C-alpha cells in the first residue's frame, strides 16, 4: 500500500518563479491495482509520480511505501528502493541512442553487479515476451515507435519491480499501439504488479484494467470528479 499524507511539492522555493506543483495531496493507493492520474497538463500528475517513485522528495508531507516511510531516507537508500521497487516508463521512452536494444534493457541493472550472463538471459527473456527479441542487437534509433515503447517497458522490468510507473505512456503512440500497450499493462496487472499511470488519454483511463482514477487539478485532488471507476477505496486523508 502506498500512502501519501498532505504531500506538497514546491519548485524554486523562495524565488520569484516559485510554483506549487503538488499542493497537499493525501491519497491511499492499493497494491496490485492500476491507478490512473488524470488531469490537464500542469496539474501535477508527473510530479506526483516522481514523488511516489522516490525520484524527488516532497517539500512537506509524508509518503509511506509498503509500510516504510520514505521521505526522510538519505539519497543512497532512496536509489536502492527506486531500483528494486520501481520500473519507469517515460513519456518519450528515453532510450539511450547509439547503443543496442539489449544494452538499453540491461542498463538499469548494470550498477547492481549481477553477472552479465544472468542479466542477458533475463533481458532476452523480457524482449521475447514483448516480441522484440529479434531486434536485440539493433541500435535503438532504428526501432519503430511501438518497438521503442516495448523496449522501454522491458527496461522498466529488468530489475523485477513490484510497482510500474508510467508517465503519459501513449503520448507518442497511435491508437493501435496504445491498445497494444493496454494489453501489455493487463499482462503486468495479472502478474500482480502495482501500476501507476499519469495520462489524459481515454484509451488508458477508460480501459477496463483501471481500478481507480485520480483527478488532479492545480496540484490538488479534484474531489468532485473521482469518476465511476473509483470502487470506494479512495480515502482522502486530508489534514493528517
Amino acid at each position, binding site marked *: 500500500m502506498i500512502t501519501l499524507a498532505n504531500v506538497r511539492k514546491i519548485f524554486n522555493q523562495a524565488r520569484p518563479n516559485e510554483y506549487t506543483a503538488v499542493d497537499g495531496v493525501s491519497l491511499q493507493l492499493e497494491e496490485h491495482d492500476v491507478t490512473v492520474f488524470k488531469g490537464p497538463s500542469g496539474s501535477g500528475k*508527473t*510530479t506526483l*509520480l*516522481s514523488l511516489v*517513485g*522516490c*525520484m*524527488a522528495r516532497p517539500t512537506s508531507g509524508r509518503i509511506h511505501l509498503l509500510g516504510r516511510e520514505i521521505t526522510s531516507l538519505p*539519497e*543512497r537508500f532512496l*536509489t536502492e528502493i*527506486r*531500483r528494486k521497487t*520501481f520500473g*519507469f516508463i*517515460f*513519456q*518519450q521512452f*528515453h532510450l*539511450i*541512442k*547509439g*547503443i*543496442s536494444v539489449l*544494452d538499453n534493457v*540491461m*542498463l*538499469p*541493472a*548494470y*550498477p*547492481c*553487479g*549481477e*553477472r*552479465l550472463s544472468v*542479466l542477458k538471459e533475463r533481458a532476452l527473456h523480457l524482449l521475447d515476451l514483448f516480441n522484440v527479441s529479434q531486434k536485440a542487437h539493433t541500435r535503438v534509433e532504428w526501432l519503430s515507435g511501438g518497438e521503442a515503447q516495448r523496449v522501454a517497458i522491458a*527496461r522498466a522490468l529488468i*530489475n523485477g519491480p513490484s510497482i510500474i510507473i508510467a*508517465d503519459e505512456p501513449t503520448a507518442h503512440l497511435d491508437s493501435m499501439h496504445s491498445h497494444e500497450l493496454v494489453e501489455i499493462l493487463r499482462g503486468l496487472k495479472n502478474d500482480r504488479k502495482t501500476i501507476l499511470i499519469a495520462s489524459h488519454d481515454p484509451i488508458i483511463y477508460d480501459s477496463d484494467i483501471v481500478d481507480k482514477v485520480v483527478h488532479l487539478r492545480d496540484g490538488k485532488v479534484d474531489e468532485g470528479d473521482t469518476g465511476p471507476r473509483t470502487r470506494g477505496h479512495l480515502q482522502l486523508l486530508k489534514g493528517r
Partner: protein
Amino acid sequence: MERWIERQKNILDFTLSSLFRRKWKNAALALVYVFLVFLLASVIFFTHALKQEAGIILQNAPEMIVQRSIAGRQAPIPLSYIDKLKDITGVSAVKKRLWGYYYDPTAGANYTVMAPEDVQLDPRSIIIGEGVSRTRQVFKGSTMRFRAYDGKIIAFEVKSIMPSESELVSSDLVLMSEDGFRRLFDASGEYATDLTLQVKNPRELSVIASKVVHALPDTRPILRDELLRTYESVFDWRSGMALFLVSGAILAFLILAWDKASGMSHEEKREIGILKGIGWETSEVVLMKFWEGMVVSLSAFLAGIILAYIHVFFTSAAFFEPALKGWAVLYPRFKLTPFIDASQVATLLFLTVVPYTLATVIPSWRAATVDPDSVMRM
C-alpha cells in the same frame, strides 16, 4: 568482491559501448593523446638517460680546470703556471691539456683535436672517433690530411677508431701526439691549452679555487661540480626545445580537453539524466565517467610510453635527430643506456592520465547531481 568486479565490468561495458558511438572522434582524441604521451615520454626518457650518463661519466672529469683568459678570451696558458699551481697547498697534481678545434672544409664539420698526455702515439698517426670516420669516410689504415696553420698539408695515418659504444663522448675526437698537435697548430712548446688540477681533499676545492685566482689573476678555474651542473640542466624544462616540440601538441590537446570539459553536450546531459532516472546513483554516473576518462587516457598512456621507450632506446631517438642535429654536420650516433625509474613513469602518469580523467569526471559531476525526476520533465 565478485559483485564489485562485475559492477565495474558492467559499467565499463556501457562506457565502451558509449565511446564506440563516437568512434572517429574518440579515436582521433586517443591518437593525439598517444602522440602527446609519446613526445613527453620521449623527452623525459631521453633527457633523463642523458643526464644520468653524463653524471656518471663526468665524475671522471678533472676536478678542476684552470684556463687563462686575455681580454676576456681564452688564451694558451704558460707551462710555467704549472709550478705556481703546484705550490698551492692542497694541490696534489697538475697536468696540461692540449686541445682545440679543427674545421674540416671538405666535410664542413668541426673536430675536437686533442693531444692526450697519457696516450702514446707516434707523430704521424692519429686515433679518430666514430663520427669523424663516418663523416669523412676514413677508416683504420687510411690517411687523413689536415691543413696546418701555415697552409701545409699534413698527412696522418688513422691508427685506430674509437669504439662506437663511446660515441657519446668521443664521436668528434681526433687524438694525436703532442708533436703532431704543435705542428698542426703552431702551438709553442711553452704553452698548453689549459691545465687540470688534482686536489688532496675534494672538500677544499672551492678554497683552492679562490687561491688559484689569487695567485694567478688572469686565470679562471672551472670546478667539476660546475661541469656536472651544466649537464644537469641540459634539456632543462625551462629551456625551449622540449616546449617547442611539445607545445603544439599540448595546445591542441588542451583545446580538445577544454572543449570536452566545458561543453558537456546537451546529449550527454540528457543521457546522464536518463541514467539517473532509471536508477543510477550519482556515484555510479561519476564512476562511468571515470572509466570513460581512464579508457581513453590509460590506453593512450600505455601505448605512448611503449612507443617512447622503443623510440628512445631502440631507435636512438630518431624522431628527435633532425631537431637535435641543427647545424651540426657531424652528429654523434649514440645508443643511450635506459635509465628509467618509477618516478619518471609516475610523473608522466600524473601529467597525462590524471588531468584528462579529471577533465572528464569533474564536468559530469555537476550533471550527475541532477535530480532523477528531471528525466520526467525532459
